[in-house]
């Protein structure tokens, strides 16, 4: 085990998978010579050369469409789309070209495409701070991954690359420099298996992406107040480990869902609905969602701070729930 950053963990995953399998190649804007706008692909061009590490023009739509075409021919392309806000430019190929390959071939063909993209707020303005993962959870045929730690990032990216279906892989911008322990040897993290980041008995916090770190910090303060919080990180939104969430809520009776994304129509809404449908009897209090208000993420630092969910918002939500009889 050694401590590496989230960014380095992703890079290691790419390098190891590209060494392991010649059909894996990466493409995107500024990923080769520059090493990626957010630094993930640094050094890959030197090791793997320009046929496997490809700089492209600013052509998000064609880039993802080409990824689909290459995947249909047995390659395993990993496309980098700088920010998830730019996925708006390639929705056709994600939703119409990639997501339906297995279905329209009745399972006889596959599209092993990975689209890696950064999401979340980090002072880059309203159109570079969004978290749009919920849109993709709504499209059957896609898998949606949001790792919160270096360990999860490396293991999940390897799984994503080996997966036969199209995967949209969200990397919280705020986490690239976060360090964590990662094994030295080859390992993967399966899809559809949530990680209990902290065991507890009084309240379940389901958090993913950048909110996992804030949730864990909040649990420390909660512990001082005698509140024992459990933190469940689903890690993959599709497939979603709803069993783990329901098991936890059955135990605690209280649920807070926290994410850095707009509240209305966010993933929290889906999880809350699942618990209402399949675990209503477990609940001692209403489900609470801690998320961005329904506004774009403003640029000015204090505005952004106000919009993005903070530790205080989580503490307040949990304390409200604990106050319910």
């Amino acid at each position, binding site marked *: 085990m050694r401590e590496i950053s989230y960014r380095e963990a992703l890079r290691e995953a790419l390098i190891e998978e590209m060494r392991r399998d010649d059909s894996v190649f990466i493409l995107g804007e500024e990923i080769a010579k520059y090493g990626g706008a957010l630094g993930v692909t640094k050094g890959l061009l030197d090791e793997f050369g320009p*046929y496997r590490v490809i700089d492209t023009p600013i052509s998000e*739509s064609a880039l993802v469409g080409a*990824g689909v075409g290459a995947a249909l021919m047995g390659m395993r392309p990993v496309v980098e789309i700088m920010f998830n806000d730019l996925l708006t430019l390639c929705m056709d190929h994600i939703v119409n070209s990639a997501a339906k390959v297995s279905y329209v071939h009745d399972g*006889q063909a596959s599209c092993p495409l990975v689209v890696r993209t950064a999401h979340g707020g980090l002072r880059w303005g309203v159109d570079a701070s969004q978290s749009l993962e919920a849109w993709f959870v709504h499209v059957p045929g896609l898998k949606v991954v949001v790792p919160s730690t270096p360990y999860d990032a490396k293991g999940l990216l390897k799984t994503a690359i080996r997966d036969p*279906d199209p995967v949209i892989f969200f990397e919280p911008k705020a986490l690239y420099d976060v360090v964590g322990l990662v094994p030295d040897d080859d390992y993967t993290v*399966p899809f559809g298996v949530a990680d209990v980041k902290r065991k507890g008995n009084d309240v379940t916090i389901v958090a993913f992406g950048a909110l996992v770190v804030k949730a864990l910090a909040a649990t420390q303060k909660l512990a001082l107040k005698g509140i024992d919080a459990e933190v469940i990180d689903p890690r993959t939104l599709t497939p979603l480990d709803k069993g783990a969430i329901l098991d936890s809520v059955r135990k605690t009776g209280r649920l807070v869902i926290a994410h850095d994304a707009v509240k209305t129509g966010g993933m929290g809404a889906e999880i809350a609905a699942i618990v209402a449908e399949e675990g209503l009897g477990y609940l001692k209090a209403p489900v609470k969602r801690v998320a961005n208000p329904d506004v774009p993420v403003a640029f000015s630092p204090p505005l952004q701070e106000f919009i993005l969910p903070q530790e205080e918002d989580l503490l307040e939500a949990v304390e409200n729930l604990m106050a319910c009889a």
Partner: protein
Amino acid sequence: MELTDEDLREMYRLMVLCRRFEERAVQWWREGRVAEGLLPGVGQEAVGVGSCYGLRGGDYVLPSLRTRAAFFVRGVPLREQVAAMCGKGTAAYRGKTTSHHAGYPEFGVLVGTSLVGSSIAVAVGAALAMKLQKRDNVVIDFFGDGAANRGDFHEAINLAAIFKLPTVFVCENNLYNMWVPTSSTMAIVDIADRAGGYGIPGMVVDGQDVIAVHEAVQEATKRARAGSGPTLIECKTYRYFPHHPSMKEDRPVAEIERWRARDPIRILERRLLGEGTITEEEIERMKREIDNDVEEALRYAEESPYPDPETALQHVYVQPWGGG
């Protein structure tokens, strides 16, 4: 490629097959006997047949919504196509998709979507894979004049040009979108003129002359296989039917007549008869066989059961859970 008499007869047969099939399919749809309302490319047969004839195993094509010919030339069976048009359980994909958007990798046809122009980028990606896999195969991508105005046309052709990918872009310019004449959707006349903007060769070809189409595409595939990159071939052609069988005809009668006078099947037929490559009797026998096969395919499809509705929930993913 040198076309033998055998080749010429086969190209003729394929165009006739296309024509007879589509004419019947339109009737079947009107009679409520097939679920898929096909968008007939009757009149455009030479473009698909000329382009796809003589491709090698390992080459791939992406048909446009008018290139029914691509499926026939590449060998996708009649029964399969009609079963798929009816959404029956005997179709390869058990009704999950229409006949025209189905992909048949074993026949070298890549899956499409119904979005006009979206095939271009997918074709370029397939060609990129061929280059990375060091194959000397090519991808033929078909699209119409309307698709040439999509943003993807620009992005994808530019990608193919800079990476010198083995793609041949065949634009079937039939002068109309659905209703709207192409002339009001662009400030130029020849879509082939756009090729220069990407640094690739572009040419205009008589889309009613199957030999001319064939020669242009073969030349382009030679360039592609040699690593010289893509070509844009604009075939001037025309469809005799409205966009969809439910629509009434709105185009000038004189214009339709003018194009019918340059019917691609009759052009080749006159040449073959004149050169003695085929006889009238052989043509009649050919048409009878084709008509029998087409009717048999419908019978097969009509007698086939529908898939169990529960199958609608299957195969959304190749691997629904786990992995890693």
